[in-house]
């Protein structure tokens, strides 16, 4: 026998569980991924999927009250502002010279100066990345 209250509990628990899974995956990615740009991907997962699903679960738990309106406001605000914030982080990081990791990106960065093999240009890109990080540390 499944009445309305039990259905509400099950639905809100399901959405909050989805949000918790997204939150844990995004946070693990923030800790483990190798680069600023990769970590931006993980933080986008936390900000949109995790927060939206948990807020949706709380809305279903609450029903039609004033608290639901405030939760919808929080959800809409975070849904629109967190991609803007991560985009701004990526833009400022790229403009201030953080080199992305990755074989193709490193080869493209090295191909402008020297036309060598892939392994050698990888080494060049790694070296330039290291010097940039040290210069950033001193400034």
């Amino acid at each position: 026998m499944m009445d309305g209250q039990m259905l509400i509990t099950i639905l809100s628990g399901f959405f909050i569980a989805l949000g918790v899974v997204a939150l844990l995956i995004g946070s693990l990615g923030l800790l483990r991924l190798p680069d600023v740009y990769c970590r931006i991907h993980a933080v986008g997962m936390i900000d949109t999927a995790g927060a939206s699903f948990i807020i949706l679960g709380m809305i279903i738990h609450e029903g039609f009250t004033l608290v639901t309106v405030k939760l919808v406001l929080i959800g809409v605000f975070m849904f629109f502002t967190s991609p803007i914030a991560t985009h701004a982080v990526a833009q400022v990081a790229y403009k201030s010279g953080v080199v992305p990791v990755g074989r193709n990106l490193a080869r493209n960065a090295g191909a402008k100066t020297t036309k060598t093999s892939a392994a050698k240009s990888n080494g060049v890109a790694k070296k330039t990345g290291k010097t940039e990080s040290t210069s950033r540390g001193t400034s």
Partner: protein
Amino acid sequence: MMMLVAISACAVCLVMALVRTMLGPTAFDRVLAVNAIGTLIILGIALHGFIMERPEFVDIALLYAILNFIGTFAVLKLFSTGSLGDAPPSRKK
């Protein structure tokens, strides 16, 4: 019941983001991790209000959402231009 699980997961994720804040190699990793910490704090405040049967805490969560956005942009503007928009740094000398 599920809210307790969610707030525990928020605590675990907050510890992971705090570790990334401590050992992030560049400043942008730290900005990103602080942004994630702000999101987790918002969720934790709202969930705490639901667990304690006082959903008025959602107002504080809304305030934190606005402050998190503005704070991230203020720190990024300080990094990229060297000032917060009051006066250009060349004129200050």
